[in-house]
């Protein structure tokens, strides 16, 4: 055999013997060096490995723990919103608990005060309390009141500091400062977590059977803690109280440094918001009685013998309430058996007497009001009058301070600004005007956009159909949409108006989703009836995060322009 031949035979033999291993080795090498293939193998083995090591002493777990911790932290840092959503139910509960604890102390106090009074009724209630396992105070409140405002907190909006606090109990709930700060933080939290615009105020919270209604003002807000089922009018009462506080305390609110002396007298205003309504059939003494007590001596002298004590008491209260209402000057209140007669003066812009008195006048069949019109200089009425006569665009907010300075803020056209500057100083009760915060919008379409986005339409609970009043308002707004539409057409742009329907959080999600859309749809339909092409509109539904509140249930518009 030749040398070459021998070599070749050997090579063939080697290949014959070794090639399967050779191929296997190359493959294994590839398995190890190509990450994709290695991963495929590990994928099969890893679960088993983890499972096996999870037993005994779990070194794998120990090794992984710090890594997982870091991963969690990075996730939170990158996307706190996600975390907030996951944790919301937990946090909600913690917060509820904290607030509830503060207020359950109050119940204790009420309890204590009541324990000492004994009557047949109280024995009956005590029996119910014992049987149902609820506290005596709870039973009394439930049996006696339709609703009752138990506490009012006035809270500095920016810092969440407590400015004023009124409560029914003699002993004050301990941590009211904390509750006030927490309420502020909760609002920030909810707003952040649910993508609600900063100006959108939170209307209400439910805390362990108590309702907390929140009324927002520019510098401070009012939180009322309510038992039972308050009527929607209570919102108006809270709003009035808050407006008064803003008027009276304007200078200190402007630059609040945390000095509680500044608000030493705020309590008298807050007391006005401590409304309640008794269950029918309940006659008795309460804070009205206390209020009346101050007025009684006045009437005792002249009226003694004419009226029963009950009637005098009621009339005194009615007079007191009307006198405290801006725009009323009452000379006499008379009980005429089945009707009530009022004599005096009333600013035509003040709420009608029936509305002011509410349940107080319930026992009369009608109300005869001999009220001569007059112009009241109470700030809230001056402001109302200014709104009427100056007719600001929807995008302008008018405010009046204590010294009578009328300020306008927001977007307006030059013509309105001129009208404001010329006309406002002539209004009774206005001493100075300030238009520094008015942004002059040059074009008509800018103004229309500003107006439309500032507009809102509120709804009653679970209502999507439009009332007459709402339809009239939409007609006014539709004219603006139509005008904006023709302007944008002329400029070769396509106007898109998004109709955003909002609901409050009470009721099921699916129901609310559907309700929000129905609200938006009925507004769209109303616009379309007014001759605006349907394709201008898009509808969207939103559910607000927390239950209750007037402002939760509404329609907002968002405006866009698209290129054709």
């Amino acid at each position: 055999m030749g040398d070459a031949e021998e070599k070749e035979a050997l090579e063939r033999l080697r290949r014959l013997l070794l090639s399967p291993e050779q191929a296997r080795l190359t493959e294994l090498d590839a398995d190890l060096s190509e990450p994709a293939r290695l991963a495929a193998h590990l994928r099969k083995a890893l679960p088993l490995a983890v499972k096996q090591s999870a037993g005994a002493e779990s070194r794998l777990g120990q090794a992984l723990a710090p890594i997982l911790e870091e991963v969690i932290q990075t996730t939170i840092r990158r996307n706190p919103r996600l975390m907030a959503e996951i944790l919301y139910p937990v946090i909600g509960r913690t917060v509820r608990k904290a607030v509830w604890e503060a207020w359950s102390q109050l119940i204790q106090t009420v309890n204590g005060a009541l324990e000492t009074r004994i009557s047949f009724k109280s024995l009956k209630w005590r029996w119910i309390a014992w049987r149902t396992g609820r506290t005596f105070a709870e039973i009394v409140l439930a049996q006696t009141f339709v609703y009752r405002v138990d506490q009012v907190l006035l809270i500095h909006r920016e810092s969440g500091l407590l400015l004023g606090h009124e409560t029914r109990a003699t002993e004050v709930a301990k941590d009211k400062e904390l509750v006030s700060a927490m309420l502020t933080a909760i609002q920030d939290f909810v707003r952040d977590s649910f993508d609600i615009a900063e100006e959108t105020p939170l209307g209400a919270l439910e805390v362990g059977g108590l309702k907390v209604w929140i009324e927002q003002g520019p510098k401070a807000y009012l939180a009322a803690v309510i038992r039972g089922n308050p009527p929607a009018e209570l919102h108006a009462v809270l709003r009035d109280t808050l407006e008064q506080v803003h008027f009276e305390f304007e200078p200190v609110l402007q630059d609040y440094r945390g000095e509680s002396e500044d608000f030493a007298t705020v309590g008298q205003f807050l007391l006005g918001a401590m409304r309640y309504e008794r269950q029918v059939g309940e006659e008795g003494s309460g804070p009205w009685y206390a209020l009346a007590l101050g007025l009684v001596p006045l009437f005792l002298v002249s009226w003694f013998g004419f009226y029963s004590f009950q009637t005098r008491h009621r009339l005194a209260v009615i007079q007191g309430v009307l006198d405290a209402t801006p725009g009323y000057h009452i000379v006499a209140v008379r009980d005429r058996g089945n009707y009530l007669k009022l004599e005096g003066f009333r600013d035509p812009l003040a709420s009608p007497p029936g509305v002011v008195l509410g349940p107080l006048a319930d026992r009369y069949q009608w109300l005869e009001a001999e009220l001569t019109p007059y112009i009241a200089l109470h700030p809230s009425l001056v402001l109302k009058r200014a709104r009427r006569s100056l007719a600001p665009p929807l995008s302008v907010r008018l405010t009046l301070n204590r010294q009578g300075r009328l300020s306008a803020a927001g977007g307006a056209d030059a013509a309105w600004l001129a009208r404001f500057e010329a006309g406002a100083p002539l209004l009774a009760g206005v001493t100075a005007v300030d238009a520094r915060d008015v942004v002059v919008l040059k074009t008509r379409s800018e103004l229309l956009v500003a107006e439309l986005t500032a507009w809102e339409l509120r709804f009653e609970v679970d209502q999507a159909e439009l009332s007459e009043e709402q339809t009239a308002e939409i007609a006014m707004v539709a004219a603006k949409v139509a005008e904006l539409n023709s302007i944008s057409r002329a400029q070769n742009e396509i106007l898109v108006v998004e109709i955003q329907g909002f609901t409050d959080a009470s009721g099921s999600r699916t129901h609310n989703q559907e309700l929000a859309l129905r609200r938006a749809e009925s507004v769209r339909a109303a616009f379309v009836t007014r001759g605006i092409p349907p394709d201008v509109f898009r509808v969207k539904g939103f559910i607000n995060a927390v239950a209750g509140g007037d402002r939760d249930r509404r329609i907002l518009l968002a405006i866009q322009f698209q290129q054709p």
Partner: protein
Amino acid sequence: MLQKKVCLLGSFSVGKTSLIAQFVHGIFGEKYLTTIGVKIDKRRVTTEKGETTLVIWDLNGQDDLQKVRLANLRGSSGFLFVVDGTRPATLNVVLELDALVQREMGALPRLLLLNKCDLQDEWLLEASRVEELRAAGWHVKRTSAKTGEQVAEAFGALAEMMVR
């Protein structure tokens, strides 16, 4: 009576919550429970202007300036910026936060707390760096939420600055 809102700011795990727990309740825990959102506490202090209630906002650690919730800071009369002395990087975070606060809210009373000063062996902040900060106008205190060292003093000093 005065009320003042105070915010604690700083990176994750520097000891903000622990400092407050020490100051308000006099307790300390080794366990790390990261704060999510806001926790609020209060305590009365006596300043030269009389009694003052500090309403103390404990915010979650903020390393990412973009994510700071300005709404929570508003209305604050003073700030405690907290650094973990064993992690010098947390000082950079604080300096950025301070710049942000100054930009958004102007110059307000503030104190720099170099926390965890009980951990001498692991301390990594150089004395020269601290001197630089003092020279730059910072009021600096070395605190320990664990031993309580300088904690009440820090809150007290801030209170004095705020009522002045």
